[in-house]
């Protein structure tokens, strides 16, 4: 630039600014007017009519911008300042009273200071910097910059608080985002979206910058002006660019700021990254890696949560109870990974809306179908194949997701040359359908149907089949921002069927069935910002067919034997309030009161009092008519939790909860077997009652990337069932003579360190826990171990689990799992004797020894396809090796009399490294 040119320019500027100074005095004449609900162009017309200003803007940029203000004698600059404050729009006024309105970028009407000196501007000049960096910055999503006005506009904004509510959804699929944190920073106040993606937050009226965060989604925010109660739906985008592999989903400081303790939320992404034996992502296996959750063995999907038995977990699949959560002898869990959105496990401080089981609640939620377009996904693994389709039925209103999964193990068994496997069969399938219909803003209806079926026959003439069936219809109704309700009707059915037809004389069919129908109404009420109230009522009707034994075929001599049906009605009301007394102290107090009636028709045996119940002590039989209440039990269930914030990164929590259980599983095998039966509480079998006291200490590092927690608990259980030696459970008309009333106690301490983000993420946990049982009741049929405490089958005191994931790049990640636990207790033989010429064993008292310790390392590699947005199908590969070191971890130890010798064996289920390859796709 030549000096001459510079000078000319300078002169021009000087002249210009002088002229501007002159006309500015004219233009600074204040304006007045009521500009409510005006389109921006109308507003501009009116300003231009009153003043010499002329506006320049792109009409497309401002067409959604509504002006809503009233001004009295204010200069245009002030009016514009007020109008655009907090929005994405910027204005600039030059010397000629030309007003430039731009979105996102600021126009400079003069040159920067020091421009002519040729150097960089001295001192910070944010506008300039914004300019210079503009090109490389990504364009902000429109809604983030927009200012949303909530409620009916008032001027001035009335003091006080109002409630904002709405849904958080995934913008691509329309699916609700569960567990998204919705908060403002100053004062710090927030809430979390529920399972419907619904949130409700009460804030001081006025302007706020509402932030929304959910892991796996891009952080977003909304500028709002809260005038009164109103609705704001928030769309979030998938964090596709970061491709974050997320371990535990919850807002980042939830463990510190939330009241909930003993709760784990797991989403499908973390489920998919944990290596499993057969390559398929398996929810229950991941749950088993969490502290406080144990299982008796590798082939079992049964959960023992903090000393609870496997039947003490309420496993809900979209609110319907699943009675048998395993497929194929327990190698697979009953949940199709493509259908699951997330699962929440409550180990303590169980919310008062849940009831009916002693130890835990596992709340599994399916995804909602994509509301925008049809998509599909699927996978092919070592033993299974699966396919899921989803899409809108009516765009943005109604969507469906349907999934099918099946195994081709039957076909594989047929390929085996061995005759014994030729006679074997094992197969399963499950079908899922979930439909969401959003009738209008206030009403949403959900339907879920689920069917799982298993069939097997292992080298014998007896075939087994079992089936879970559930259906749920849910209607969510929003009364107003502060109150919404969910009405649910559900049905759960479980049946099993055993049949044998090789010998026509003995051919039989044995069936067992549970039918459970439930209706419930749940209400969520947000009266003020400090209180979150939920209350509701539920009623469950059980009908059990405990055993129906029928001849099969004409030649069969089997005498039909039908154990009479059992009926029970379990009802409950509950009320809970979460009260945030101060930012440091909050309390959640809930009371659930459950009522249970054992209903006729049924014949009930009366036994001689004070002596063990047996067939010989039956005194009388009382017959009750249909619908008559035979016996009833009821009692309060307290759910209390307290949180005290020690600092912004640490808190201490306490909880106490009582739970009652009116239906129990009877099983004298150590793992859940397909022929286990369920039994309702009756005059002889009292409901189980459990109390749990827990204390926890939580600490995050400063940026909430590393979470540390210690939780300790003590638990008592009453009226647990154990069994007489040689108890006969199937087709037993008087099961009370074969069960033993036991009490249990469990205690433990769980340490957990989690790293949620970064290239390396995962968790490490250590648990020390004991579970002990005792049969002290003198009227028991059998006093196990002379009435002293003995360890339960799943008492494994030490447990260390490491789940690690390392992301090498966006397409390639490695996972490594390590598990160590003490061997489970077993009963060993202590001496031998010869009976009828053959040696036999005499066993020790129950569970006095342990099988060798268990440790296992698994490894997995996830390879994603390329990240082109538009291609036919996105695919990924998972290559995993389960039990990498090939350790023979004993599952059980047993002794057999073989010929004239006794031989001891240990059975390992996965005694070799099990490699697997799974191909997943989505289109």
């Amino acid at each position: 630039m030549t000096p001459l040119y510079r000078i000319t320019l300078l002169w021009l500027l000087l002249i210009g600014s002088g002229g501007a100074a002159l006309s500015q005095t004219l233009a600074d004449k204040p304006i007045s007017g009521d500009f409510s609900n005006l389109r921006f162009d109308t507003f501009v017309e009116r300003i231009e009519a009153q003043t010499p200003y002329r506006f320049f803007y792109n009409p497309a940029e401002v067409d959604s911008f509504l002006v809503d203000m009233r001004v009295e004698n204010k200069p245009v600059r002030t009016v514009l300042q007020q109008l655009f404050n907090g929005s994405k729009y910027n204005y600039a006024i030059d010397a000629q009273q030309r007003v430039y309105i731009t979105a996102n970028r600021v126009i400079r009407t003069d040159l920067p200071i020091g421009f002519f000196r040729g150097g960089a501007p001295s001192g910070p000049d944010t506008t300039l910097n914004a300019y210079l960096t503009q090109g490389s910055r990504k364009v902000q999503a429109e809604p983030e910059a927009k200012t949303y006005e909530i409620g009916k506009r008032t001027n001035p904004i009335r003091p006080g608080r109002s409630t904002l509510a709405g849904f958080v959804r995934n913008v691509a699929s329309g699916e609700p985002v569960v567990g998204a944190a919705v908060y403002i920073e100053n004062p710090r106040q927030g809430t979390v979206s529920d399972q419907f993606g619904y949130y409700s937050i009460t804030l001081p009226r006025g302007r706020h910058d509402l932030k929304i965060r959910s892991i796996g989604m891009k952080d977003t925010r909304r500028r709002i002006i809260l005038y009164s109660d109103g609705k704001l739906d928030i769309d979030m985008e998938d964090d596709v660019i970061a491709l974050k592999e997320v371990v535990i989903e919850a807002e980042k400081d939830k463990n510190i700021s939330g009241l909930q303790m003993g709760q784990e939320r797991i989403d499908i992404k973390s489920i998919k990254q944990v290596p499993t034996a057969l390559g398929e992502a398996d929810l229950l296996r991941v749950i088993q890696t969490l502290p406080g959750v144990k299982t008796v063995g590798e082939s079992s999907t049964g959960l023992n949560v903090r000393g609870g038995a496997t039947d003490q977990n309420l496993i809900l699949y979209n609110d319907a109870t699943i009675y048998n959560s395993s497929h194929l002898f327990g190698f697979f869990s009953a949940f199709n990974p493509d259908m699951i959105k997330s699962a929440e496990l409550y180990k303590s401080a169980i919310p008062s809306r849940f009831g009916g089981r002693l130890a835990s609640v596992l709340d599994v939620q399916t995804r909602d179908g994509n509301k925008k377009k049809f998509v599909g996904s699927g996978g092919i693994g070592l033993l299974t194949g699966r396919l899921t389709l989803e899409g809108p039925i009516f765009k943005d209103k109604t969507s469906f997701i349907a999934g099918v999964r099946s195994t081709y193990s039957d076909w594989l068994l047929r390929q085996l040359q061995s005759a014994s496997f030729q006679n074997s069969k094992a197969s399963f399938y499950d079908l899922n359908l979930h439909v969401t219909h959003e009738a209008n803003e206030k009403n949403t209806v959900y339907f879920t149907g689920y069917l799982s079926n298993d069939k097997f026959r292992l080298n014998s003439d007896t075939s087994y089949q079992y089936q879970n069936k559930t259906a749920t219809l849910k209607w969510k109704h929003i009364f107003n921002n502060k109150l919404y309700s969910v009405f649910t009707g559900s049905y759960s059915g479980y049946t099993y069927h055993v049949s044998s037809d090789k010998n026509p004389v003995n051919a039989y069919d044995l069936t067992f069935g549970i039918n459970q129908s439930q209706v419930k109404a749940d209400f969520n009420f947000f009266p003020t910002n400090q209180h979150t109230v939920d209350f509701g009522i539920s009623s469950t009707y059980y009908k059990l067919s405990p055993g129906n034994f029928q001849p099969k075929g004409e030649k069969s001599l089997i005498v039909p034997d039908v154990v009479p049906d059992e009926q029970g009605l379990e009802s409950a009301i509950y009320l809970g309030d979460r009260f945030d007394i101060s930012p440091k102290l909050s309390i959640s107090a809930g009371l659930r009161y459950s009522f249970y009636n054992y209903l006729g028709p049924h014949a009930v045996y009366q036994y001689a009092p004070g002596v063990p119940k047996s067939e010989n002590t039956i005194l009388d039989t009382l017959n009750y008519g249909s619908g008559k209440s035979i016996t009833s039990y009821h009692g309060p269930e307290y759910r209390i939790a307290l949180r005290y914030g020690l600092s912004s990164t640490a808190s201490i929590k306490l909880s106490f909860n009582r739970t009652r259980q009116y239906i129990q599983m009877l099983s004298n095998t150590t793992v859940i077997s397909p022929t286990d039966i369920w039994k309702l509480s009756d005059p002889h079998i009292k409901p189980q009652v459990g109390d749990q006291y827990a204390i926890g200490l939580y600490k995050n590092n400063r940026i909430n990337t590393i979470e540390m927690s210690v939780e300790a608990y003590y638990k008592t259980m009453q009226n647990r069932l154990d069994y007489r030696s040689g108890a006969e459970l199937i087709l037993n008309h008087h099961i009370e003579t074969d069960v033993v009333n036991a009490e249990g106690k469990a205690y433990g301490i769980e340490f957990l360190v989690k790293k949620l983000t970064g290239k390396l993420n995962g968790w490490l946990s250590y648990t020390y826990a004991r579970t002990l049982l005792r049969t002290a009741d003198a009227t028991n049929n059998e006093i196990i171990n002379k009435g002293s405490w003995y360890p339960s089958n799943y008492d494994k005191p030490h447990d260390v689990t490491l789940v690690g994931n390392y992301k090498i790049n966006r397409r390639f990640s490695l996972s490594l799992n390590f598990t160590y636990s003490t061997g489970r207790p077993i009963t060993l033989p202590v001496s031998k004797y010869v009976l009828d010429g053959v040696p036999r064993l005499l066993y020790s008292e129950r569970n006095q020894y342990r099988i060798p310790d268990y440790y296992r390392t698994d490894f997995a590699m996830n390879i994603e396809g390329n990240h082109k947005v538009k291609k036919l199908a996105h695919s990924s590969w998972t290559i995993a090796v389960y039990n990498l070191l090939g350790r023979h971890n004993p599952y059980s130890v047993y002794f057999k009399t073989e010929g004239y010798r006794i031989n001891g064996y240990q059975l390992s289920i996965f005694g070799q490294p099990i490699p697997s390859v799974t191909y997943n796709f989505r289109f």
Partner: protein
Amino acid sequence: MRNTPHTYWLSWALLLLVSGCIDPYRPPEVAAPASYLVVNGFFDSAPGATTTIQLSHTQNLTDTKSPTAETKALVTIESQNKAVYTLKEGTSGAYSLSGVTPLAGETYRLHIKTSKGTDYYSDYVPVLTTPAIDSVSWHTEANNVLFSVNTHDPKNNTHYYRWEFEETWEFTAPYYSQLEIRNNTIVDRSENINRCWNTTYSTNIMLTSTERLSQDIVSQFPLTSVPGTSGKLGIKYSMLVKSYALTQAGFAYYDQLAKITQNLGSIFDPQPSQITGNMRASNNPGDLVLGFFRVGTVAAKRIFIRRDQLPNINTYAGDPGCVVDTFSVSKVLKEQPAIISLFGENQYLVTSFPCVDCRYKGVNKRPSFWE
């Protein structure tokens, strides 16, 4: 369908899962808390039968000696009507009684007073008459002979059966030895050691209940499967099936004992527990006594199967590994092998003894029942 290597590999993967991995297990050294009394035997109600009750003790698991007998005990069988029969002590803990036939409709118990003065009593048990076995049937499947038993009780009140069987088979050694060495000279063999009979006894507890059937009929209860290659079916095979009627309590006892000591190793095993039977110490419930006392008869049935009845069964038992050599007389006398026969001049065909002497695997005395 042809197996491609690919499907074969997948099948193996599945096989691995289904069959798991079984290793021998040595329990930790556990010293038994005490040695308990074990009672074997039953009160045989067949007229003229001799009842034998055998008393022994439990042993440590690692003990390889035979069980210690309980001697010098006073063993009596007592009826509810106060009749008392004392058993006579024989050798090594065996106590026997003959000439007493229990009365139908009466109940009896076993009373043992040990030399230490401890009294053990059984429950009173009824006299059970076992119905005759209708038939022992067999059929072939693949290269196996499958045996099963049929019976019925016309009175419809037996319901619980326990089965045992004895297998006896005739077989020959691979080579017929005509000569033997006696007093350092080669002479004609005086005793036939080529043809023998061997007997084995069933060891598994086998039970049937007809409780759930409208008629007390046991149809085709499978006993065992004998492979053609077992060497048992080469000439003639015989099976003696014995049946014992049980009370419901007796059935439950044996059923439990079977469940915890023989049918194990699946994923869904029952929990083992202490099972004792129907006997107890009179004044110390902690002092266990093992066994189940019962009173009744035994029904038995024997069948024979000749080789020619099994045209489709391959009975080749595999190469016994016999090496036949030719020795001179001096070498024969020096090395003393088993001699098969003369082979030319001063030469003998020789082999090892198990190849000519069937007594390594049986007895060369024809059983009395052999047809």
